[in-house]
């Protein structure tokens, strides 16, 4: 059964010309839909943030300024193409595409709707359904950091380099928590395929992984994926106040446009992934209207994805940026232990409730020990560092300097 569901039903009766055409058209339509969604998303973000900040936002091009993104894109394409003299030319030109391609590939595994009959062929509304499913998403999110890291490095400039160092450290810190929550979902489903993950959540809201796994994995996943996306409040990579523009400081014209596109495409894709993993993807109430039943799963999927896309916009407007050390603290000391512990508890409950409670007790014990260890470790600071107060209470630079020099003179 597992094997059968891992293969797209369209290939069940052999690969004919019609099947090839349908698969190609499905791919092109998916790509076009994603591109269209990106233009709307950029417009939506600008409008929503404008509203939250009592501004008007784009109004000039098209109704409600809807074509503003197209106008911006056109402007970026015809602008002069600059490569800094200090840049590593090959890597500089390669980097934007390295951040665009993962965003595109990840969207391929998202089930957008149910199954539609086209010319007698059952067509699954999903570009590809590889047996490794969500792992592909994890691999692509691991790859997508190269775009940022290499862009920053190849610019041959100071601030972009700092930005790329931050990006690589941030990615590694949050990848572990992200992977662990995905393991929780996969454990509960018993399959890696996104099709199966969605199918397991199809029988009502109580079967959604959001509720079935406890809210915790969902929250961890949301936080970790926001960090992977470098979206606010985790956008230390492009912190304007500290790093000019971050990794894309030296980029202009079309290449900057590609970065911009990739960022928003990633936001949409990851919203879709959250919906797939935790909110049942296209699952939802379907009224019994003849010939239109296929439409409702797509609508549900769109509604849920839009909800998360709006959430990201809201984060951006409402939350201040994390400081770099807070970011690391949250990733390593909170999210990784929590996701690991929750995974063990879920694994225990999947075997037997008694095992689950035993695991919960063990995890609480381990958590207490860990907290105590961290506290002891924080007290252990000695030497010149101990003159500085704990992180969080920031002294004036002059005071720190005096503390240091006084100590040196002893």
């Amino acid at each position, binding site marked *: 059964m597992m094997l059968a569901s891992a293969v797209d039903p369209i290939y069940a009766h052999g690969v004919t010309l019609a099947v090839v055409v349908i698969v190609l058209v499905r791919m092109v339509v998916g790509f076009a839909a994603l591109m269209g969604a990106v233009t709307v998303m950029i417009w939506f973000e600008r409008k929503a943030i404008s509203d939250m900040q009592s501004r008007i936002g784009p109004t000039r091009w098209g109704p409600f300024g809807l074509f503003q993104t197209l106008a911006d894109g056109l402007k970026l394409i015809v602008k002069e193409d600059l490569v800094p003299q200090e840049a590593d030319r090959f890597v500089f030109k390669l980097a934007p595409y390295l951040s665009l391609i993962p965003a595109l590939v990840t969207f391929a595994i998202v089930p957008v709707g149910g199954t539609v009959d086209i010319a007698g062929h059952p067509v699954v509304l999903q570009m590809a359904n590889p047996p*490794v499913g969500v792992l592909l998403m994890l691999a692509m*999110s691991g790859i997508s*950091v190269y775009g940022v*890291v290499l862009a920053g490095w190849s610019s041959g400039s100071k601030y972009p380099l700092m930005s790329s160092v931050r990006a*690589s450290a941030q990615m590694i810190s949050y990848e572990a928590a992200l992977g662990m929550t995905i393991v929780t979902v996969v454990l509960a489903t018993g399959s890696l395929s996104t099709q199966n993950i969605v199918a397991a959540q199809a029988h009502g809201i109580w079967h959604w992984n959001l509720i079935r796994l406890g809210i915790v994995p969902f929250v961890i996943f949301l936080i970790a994926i926001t960090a992977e996306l470098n979206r606010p409040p985790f956008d230390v990579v492009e912190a304007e106040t500290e790093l000019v523009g971050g990794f894309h400081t030296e980029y202009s014209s079309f290449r900057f446009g590609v970065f911009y596109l990739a960022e928003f495409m990633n936001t949409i894709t990851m919203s879709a992934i959250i919906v797939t993993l935790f909110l049942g993807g296209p699952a939802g109430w379907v009224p019994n209207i003849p010939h239109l039943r296929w439409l409702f799963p797509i609508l549900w999927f769109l509604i849920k994805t839009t909800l998360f896309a709006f959430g990201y916009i809201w984060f951006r407007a409402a939350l201040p940026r994390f400081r770099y050390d807070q970011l690391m603290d949250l990733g390593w000391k909170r999210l990784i232990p929590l996701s690991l512990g929750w995974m063990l508890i879920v694994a225990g409950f999947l075997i037997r409730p008694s095992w689950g409670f035993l695991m919960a007790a063990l995890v609480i014990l381990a958590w207490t020990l860990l907290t105590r260890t961290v506290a002891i470790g924080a007290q252990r600071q000695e030497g010149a560092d101990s003159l500085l107060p704990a992180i969080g209470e920031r002294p004036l630079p002059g005071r720190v300097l005096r503390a240091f020099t006084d100590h040196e003179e002893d």
Partner: protein
Amino acid sequence: MIAAAYAIPDILAFLTAAVMIVVGALGVLAVKNPVHAALSLILTLFGVAVAFVAQAADFLAVVQIIVYAGAIVVLFLFVIMFLGVDRFETVRVEPLVGQRALAGVGAVITVGGLIVLLASSHWVTGAVAVSTSGHPAAVGAGNVRAVGTAVFTTYLFAFEATAALLIIAVVGAVLLARRERRMDREEEA
């Protein structure tokens, strides 16, 4: 004879993977800039992933990308950027005397051993999936199950030993990196 054992798509997949692996590996050696070398390494890793997919080991392919390309090479890049081992380095002075001769001997032994192994076993097995011995249950989604079962039964000891080794390495690294600052100060004074 080769054509009898393999279909054209298999040969194409193998050629793609082989070209990626060899070009990447040569690039790591030939390129002077450390970041370019890391990029060549990624090309090699992707080539190995393609080879895994061609062998119907999808799971290994994805894990290869997640672990090596997604984490380890990112760490390499992080270190290269952080320490600024940037641009070009002069390697005129040999830190280890006689390492080139030893490396040559090592290369000869490795290549010779590989040739002996290849000559003494089957050159062409004709099986598409060597990793699963062609068993259909282990293709696709069954892949994960097969690997999981093998790791937690047959190779449990090796698996746990590796885990312990990694923990020891991490603890050692923390211990080395986090020395008492006050002791340095006393030595200076």
